[in-house]
C-alpha cells in the first residue's frame, strides 16, 4: 500500500486485574476505510476500541495515530471521537449544545461553532431539532445526534461502539445504509465494533474477526465469508458445513486427492498440503446441491436422508443426515425452471457441491 496507515496498534497487551484481555495484539487501519471489528461478547473488541479512544491505557505496546504516538495521550487530547452504544447525550443540554460541546471545548469561535453545528445537523437530517432536549428524541434521532456530535469535530478516526444495537431491525437496516453513505461523504475512517456478522459484512470495507482477545482474520467481507482462516471464523460468520478429510495425494496446481466420508474426491485448496495431512473441507449451505437419487451424477458424493426442510420464501433450507451421523445444512434457491422442487422428510437424497467452491483449511483438533 502506498499511503501509510492512519492507525496502527503494535504489540498491545491489556490486562484487567490479572486477566489478559489482549496480548501482543496488532492492527493496522488504512485512511478512509470502513473497518469493522467483529466478535462475540467478551472477545476484546470493545477493549480495542476503548484503547484507541484513550478510555483505557495499554499495559504494553504502542498506538500510532496519523503518524503520532498517542499511547500516552489522554482521551481528551486524541483526534478521535466516539459514538457510544448508549449514545451518552448530555441530558441537560439541547441538541445544539450537545453537538457544539466538542467545538466549545476546542475554543472554536462562536460564529464558526454555529456554522459547523448547523452543517453537522443538516448532514444527519436533524436541522429542525437543534433546540430539543435528548429526551424529546426517538432512538434513531438520538443516534444521529450522537453521530453529529462526533463528526462535527472532524476526527481522524470515528469510533462506533455497537452503535446500532439498540435500534429495532428496520431502523437498523436504514441506519446501516446511512452510516455507510455518511462515511463515504465525509471520508473519515470509521472503526465500527459489532457482534452482528450481517452488519459487519454489509457495511465494511474490511472486517477483523476477534475471538478470545486474538485476531482471527482480517479481510474484506468476501474474503472473510468465502475463505475463512479457521473454524471459528467459518462458523461465526454464517452457517457452514465442516467435513473432515485426509489429503491422499498432491495432484499439483493446488489440486489434491482427498479421502472424505467413504469416498475419494479431488479438491481444490489455496494453500499447500502434504499427503497425510488432515484437513477440514468447508462448504456453505448454498454451495451444496441436493439431487434426487435417480438424478445422482456420476461422481463421488454423500448420500443422506432429509431430516427437515424449511421453506423461507427465497430458499429451501434442508437438514440432511449423512450415514456417519453428521447433520448438514443445504440451502437452495428456487429455480425458475423447476418451481415445485421439494423433498419429503426421510427421503433419501444425493448431496453434491459445485466443484471448486469448497474451502479447505488445516484440521483443528
Amino acid at each position, binding site marked *: 500500500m502506498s499511503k501509510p496507515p492512519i492507525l496502527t496498534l503494535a504489540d498491545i497487551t491489556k490486562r484487567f486485574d490479572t486477566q489478559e484481555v489482549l496480548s501482543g495484539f496488532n492492527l493496522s487501519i488504512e485512511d478512509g476505510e470502513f473497518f469493522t471489528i467483529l466478535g462475540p461478547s467478551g472477545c476484546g473488541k470493545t477493549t480495542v476500541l476503548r484503547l484507541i479512544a484513550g478510555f483505557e491505557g495499554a499495559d504494553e505496546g504502542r498506538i500510532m495515530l496519523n503518524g503520532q504516538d498517542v499511547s500516552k495521550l489522554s482521551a481528551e487530547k486524541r483526534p478521535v471521537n466516539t459514538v*457510544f452504544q448508549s449514545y451518552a447525550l*448530555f441530558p441537560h443540554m*439541547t441538541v445544539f449544545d450537545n453537538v457544539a460541546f466538542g467545538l466549545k471545548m476546542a475554543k472554536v469561535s462562536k460564529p464558526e461553532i454555529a456554522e459547523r453545528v448547523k452543517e453537522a445537523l443538516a448532514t444527519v437530517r436533524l436541522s429542525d431539532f437543534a433546540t430539543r432536549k435528548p429526551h424529546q428524541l426517538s432512538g434513531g434521532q438520538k443516534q444521529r445526534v450522537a453521530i453529529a456530535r462526533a463528526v462535527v469535530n472532524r476526527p481522524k478516526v470515528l469510533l462506533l461502539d455497537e452503535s446500532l444495537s439498540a435500534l429495532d431491525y428496520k431502523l437498523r437496516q436504514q441506519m446501516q445504509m446511512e452510516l455507510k453513505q455518511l462515511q463515504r461523504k465525509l471520508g473519515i475512517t470509521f472503526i465500527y465494533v459489532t457482534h452482528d456478522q450481517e452488519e459487519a459484512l454489509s457495511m465494511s470495507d474490511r472486517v477483523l474477526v476477534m475471538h478470545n482477545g486474538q485476531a482471527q482474520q482480517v479481510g474484506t467481507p468476501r474474503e472473510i465469508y468465502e475463505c475463512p482462516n479457521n473454524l471459528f471464523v467459518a462458523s461465526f460468520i454464517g452457517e457452514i458445513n465442516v467435513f473432515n478429510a485426509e489429503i491422499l495425494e498432491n495432484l499439483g496446481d493446488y489440486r489434491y486427492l482427498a479421502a472424505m466420508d467413504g469416498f475419494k474426491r479431488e479438491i481444490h485448496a489455496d494453500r499447500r498440503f502434504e499427503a497425510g495431512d488432515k484437513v477440514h473441507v468447508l462448504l456453505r449451505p448454498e454451495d451444496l446441491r441436493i439431487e434426487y437419487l435417480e438424478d445422482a451424477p456420476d461422481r463421488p458424493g454423500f448420500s443422506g436422508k432429509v431430516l427437515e426442510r424449511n421453506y423461507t420464501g427465497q430458499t429451501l433450507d434442508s437438514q440432511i443426515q449423512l450415514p456417519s451421523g453428521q447433520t448438514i445444512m443445504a440451502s437452495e434457491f428456487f429455480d425458475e425452471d423447476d418451481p415445485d422442487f421439494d423433498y419429503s422428510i426421510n427421503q433419501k437424497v444425493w448431496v453434491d457441491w459445485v466443484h471448486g467452491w469448497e474451502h479447505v483449511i488445516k484440521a483443528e483438533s
Partner: protein
Amino acid sequence: MSQSPFRRFIIILTLAWLALFVLAPHFLVVLTSVMTPDSEHLAVWPMTLDAYARIWEPLYADVFWQSLALSAKATLICLLLGYPFAYIVAKMSPAWRAFMMFLMIIPFWTNSLIRTYAIKLLLGNKGLFNWVLEAIGVIDAPIQMIYTEFAVVFGLTYILLPFMALPLISSFDKLDKDLIEAGHDLGAGFWQRFYHIVLPLTMPGVVAGCLIVFLPAMGMFYVADLLGGAKNLLLGNIIKNQFLVVRDWPFGSAFSVTLIVIMGMMLWLYYAANKKVQRMGGLDDQNL
C-alpha cells in the same frame, strides 16, 4: 381500586396518627401563638397578634441572621465534605461502598444528644483535641474551642453530614459514566467535565442535601446549648427558652410558626424549581 378492610384500617390508622401527632400539635402551636401570655396559666385569651409583632424587634432579627449564618456555614462545610465523599463512595467497589455506608449509618443508632455530649468531650479545654495538640507540642495552653461558634458549626456539621452525603451519593449513582467518557472524548479536561457535566447533573442532590441540612440546623437548640454555651445562637434556642425559661408560650409559638413558614417557603421554592427543571428536560446550565 378495591378497598379491602385491612387496607382501609391501615389508611385510617395512618390518618389518625397524623392527625393526633402532627396536625393537632401544630394546630395547638398556631392557636397558642395568637393568645396572651399569662404567668399562671401559660396562655389565655383574648386573641392578640402581639407575639408576631415582637418577632420584628432588632434583638430577634439579630438572632435570626446569626442563626441563618451558622446554619449556612454548617451547610456549606457539609457540602464541601459531602460532595467529594459521595463521589468517592459512588465510585467504590460494592463491598467497600457497603462498609462506608455502614460507617455513616452507625451514628444514627445513637441519640444525637448523646453524640453532642461526646463532641463536648472532644472539644473541651481538657478534651481530646487539646490534649493531643499539647502532647505533640503544637500548643502550650488549651485553645478555647468549646462554647464558641466553631464548636456549634462543628457539632451541626457532624450530626448533619450524613443527610448531605446520602442524596449526593444517590445522584452520583444516577450519573451515567458514559457521559463522563463522552466529555473526555469531546476534549473536556477535568474541570470542564466537572463544571459542564458532573455538577449540573448532580445539582438535584446538592439542592436536596443543602435543604435537609440547612432547615433542621436552624432548630437544633441542644447543639447550640451544649457546645455554644448559654447564648441564643439558633432560632431553636429562642423557642426553647421562651417555652422553658421565660415561659412566654405565645411568643415561642409565634417563633415556631414563623420558622415553619420559612422552611415551607424554601421547600416550595425547591419543588417549583425542580418542576421547572424537569419540564426543561434536565438541569439548566446552558452557559457553556
